[in-house]
């Protein structure tokens, strides 16, 4: 027999809402995961924003700017959802800037060519969708609703990214090379986005029991690989994994070993852009300080006038 309303709801697959009682561990796990998710949307704006002014057609410039703007919207939406758990956006930003909170390590890689913009949309948004579709069924109501709203846009992003890569793959030799090079650099980091193997992931089990996570890292990773490899083959690009092979028995692709040392190195600061990403964020935030102060001062003045 369930010993609390919380457990009862979890067992019945009902959503936990902000006013419901919940264990501290559940709350703190959600805050960590949701704020990390929000920060990833925001930090992810930088590598892609890097190419807005250099997009090679007016149409692609507009699509990219709109995409990056969508990501800002996702971040905003997730910050608000996270605030329902009793943390403020200000606190979350502070934790991001001091390194207490993390963001997806994939954004510590640089975008070096236009093909990287295609690769990010195709692979990074592609991986994000697999994860987020699964999170639509997460047990926390505001998080679940955020995922439902966000997923529609993410699938646009994925298609637009793939379209860029397709165009390059069908283009001149130089463009083909650009596309292949981008796939070479972004494939493994994308695979790593799903996090450590289930056997090495200590937090996963609790999150699965609480139904915050609905599928394990490895199963999400597998469905991403199964979905994406044929897309690469279709346009004549080679996935940079010599051990990749279709397994008739399991009905899945087998793939090579993931270099977790590289993963943890980048998480811990050895990516080419770790420092830049946080400094960029701090710089914008600090330079906006006087603006935020002015806005507050102005609205206080207006309020006083009304009261007087």
């Amino acid at each position: 027999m369930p010993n609390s309303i919380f457990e009862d709801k979890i067992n019945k697959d009902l959503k936990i809402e902000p006013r419901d009682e919940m264990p501290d561990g559940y709350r703190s796990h959600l805050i960590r995961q949701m704020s990390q998710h929000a920060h990833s949307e925001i930090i992810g704006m930088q590598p892609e924003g890097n190419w807005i002014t250099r997009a090679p057609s007016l149409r692609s410039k507009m699509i990219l700017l709109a995409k990056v703007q969508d990501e800002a919207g996702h971040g905003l939406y997730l910050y608000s959802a996270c605030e329902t758990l009793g943390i403020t956006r200000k606190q979350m930003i502070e934790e991001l800037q001091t390194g207490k909170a993390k963001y997806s390590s994939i954004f510590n890689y640089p975008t070096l060519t236009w093909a990287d913009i295609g690769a990010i949309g195709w692979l990074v948004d592609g991986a994000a969708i697999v994860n987020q579709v699964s999170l639509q069924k997460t047990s926390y109501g505001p998080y679940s609703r955020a995922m439902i709203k966000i997923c529609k846009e993410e699938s646009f992003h994925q298609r637009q990214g793939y379209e860029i890569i397709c165009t390059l793959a069908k283009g001149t030799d130089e463009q083909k090379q650009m596309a292949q090079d981008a796939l070479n650099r972004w494939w493994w980091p994308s695979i790593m986005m799903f996090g450590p193997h289930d056997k090495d992931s200590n937090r996963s089990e609790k999150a699965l029991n609480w139904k915050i996570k609905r599928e394990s890292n490895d199963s999400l990773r597998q469905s991403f690989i199964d979905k994406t490899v044929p897309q690469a083959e279709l346009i004549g690009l080679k996935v940079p994994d010599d051990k990749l092979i279709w397994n008739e028995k399991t009905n899945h692709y087998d793939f090579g070993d993931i270099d977790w040392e590289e993963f943890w190195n980048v998480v811990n600061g050895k990516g080419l852009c770790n420092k830049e990403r946080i400094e960029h964020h701090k710089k914008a935030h600090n330079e906006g300080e006087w603006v935020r102060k002015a806005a507050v001062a102005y609205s206080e003045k207006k309020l006083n006038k009304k009261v007087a």
Partner: protein
Amino acid sequence: MNFSTDFEKYIARLADSNLIMGQRLSELCSKGPYLEEDIAISNIALDYLGQANMLYELLKKAGNGKYSVDDYVFHRNERNYYNLLLVEQDNGHFGKTMAKIFLYSTYQKILYSQLSKSTNDDIKAIALKSIKEVNYHFKHSRAWVLRLGDGTKESKVKIQESIDELWRFTGEIFESDYVENNLISENIITASNTYYDEWSKIVKDTLLEALLTEPENVVMLTGGKKGLHTEKLGFMLAEMQYLPRTYPNAKW
């Protein structure tokens, strides 16, 4: 690439100003003072790029499709760009960005409301679509001019300096030349120099309400409409055009 008719020359001016405005603002993506404002600025940038796109499509039509939209954007040099000098200026800090949007969108509001009465159906349609967008740019930037003007001491200084600095680029907005003459007589457009009074009144009123002062005795700079620019534009074009220029045979 040279424009042979007055119609094309005139449309190129409008298109280029919007493109360069949008290009500049898009530099700010991920640099806003807070998230909501970051999104708002991207929104405005997207509107300008969208307006530019419609106007280049019109140019393409006027040129019987000889050139594509991207030919206009990526394969013209500094001396063949006809945007206003105002829009190529740096974003600077947030106050300068908002001052620029305010000065420009006030003009655009008047422009598009005139062009929405054009005898040319294409121009009319573009104006009617754009005017809704521009009204938002105007409202948004005007609200910030008021907030910054009557916010803190620091913000007041910053927004006043921005208005002062950008003022010298506002004169040429209202210059009319031979390119406009025939188009005016065919009721396709109205003269740029007839927009000044309304613009001046709106700007004056706003500055007054924002507790700011209107710059006086400013020497106005001019040249954009004739393809004579400040040194800023060249760097913008170099950055914007580099890919199509580096790979001339590529399609994107």
